[in-house]
């Protein structure tokens, strides 16, 4: 069953702008993860935020988590053309797997 829902489904911005993607989930979580998928490639882990954390940074990435609203956001600052990819949030399934949302397709134009 699908757990996360990303919003928007697609986002197009200019290089240098910030990109914000949102994720909502349904059940309680221990952590939430964000992954990136470049076209024709596998998924790459970006960042993991635990349920007792509200915000986490990694380079140009900033992730927030609001467990009361069951939502998370991923902010990419000063975007680059190389950031063009699909971004997925993922939470834990009942037996150790990841449940992914449908993803946000980000296009960064040079």
């Amino acid at each position, binding site marked *: 069953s*699908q757990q996360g829902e990303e919003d928007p489904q697609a986002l197009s911005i200019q290089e240098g702008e910030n990109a914000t993607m949102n994720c909502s989930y349904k059940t309680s979580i*221990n*952590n939430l*993860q964000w*992954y990136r*998928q470049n076209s*024709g*490639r*596998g*998924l*790459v*882990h970006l960042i*993991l935020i*635990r349920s007792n954390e509200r915000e986490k940074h990694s380079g140009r990435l900033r992730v927030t988590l609001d467990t009361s609203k069951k939502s998370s956001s991923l902010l990419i600052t000063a975007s680059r053309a190389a950031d063009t990819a*699909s971004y*997925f949030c*993922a*939470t*834990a*399934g*009942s*037996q*150790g*797997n*990841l*449940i*992914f949302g*449908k*993803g946000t*397709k980000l296009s960064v134009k040079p």
Partner: protein
Amino acid sequence: DTAVSQTPKYLVTQMGNDKSIKCEQNLGHDTMYWYKQDSKKFLKIMFSYNNKELIINETVPNRFSPKSPDKAHLNLHINSLELGDSAVYFCASSRAGSTGGVDTQYFGPGTRLTVL
């Protein structure tokens, strides 16, 4: 060194055939997974193996069977291929696959299966 590798990268075959996709990880992880990504980019878990034991079997047809000869390998066998099996299949691995939180998963590059 590639952490999680899959072969082949592309697989084109006829309906009714039997095919296998191989996966290997050199990360020393305990758990390996197979995910299916459909044409709408939706990723869904198919199987996972923890120490050679199947711990997930989602509602996939029994034409799909995972086989793990050792902790570093999880192969996917598909019998009697159907048109609807066309998708991208991803192998992944992680350190832990138990309840109470999921560790980071490392994905292979994917195998694009096309059934004609």
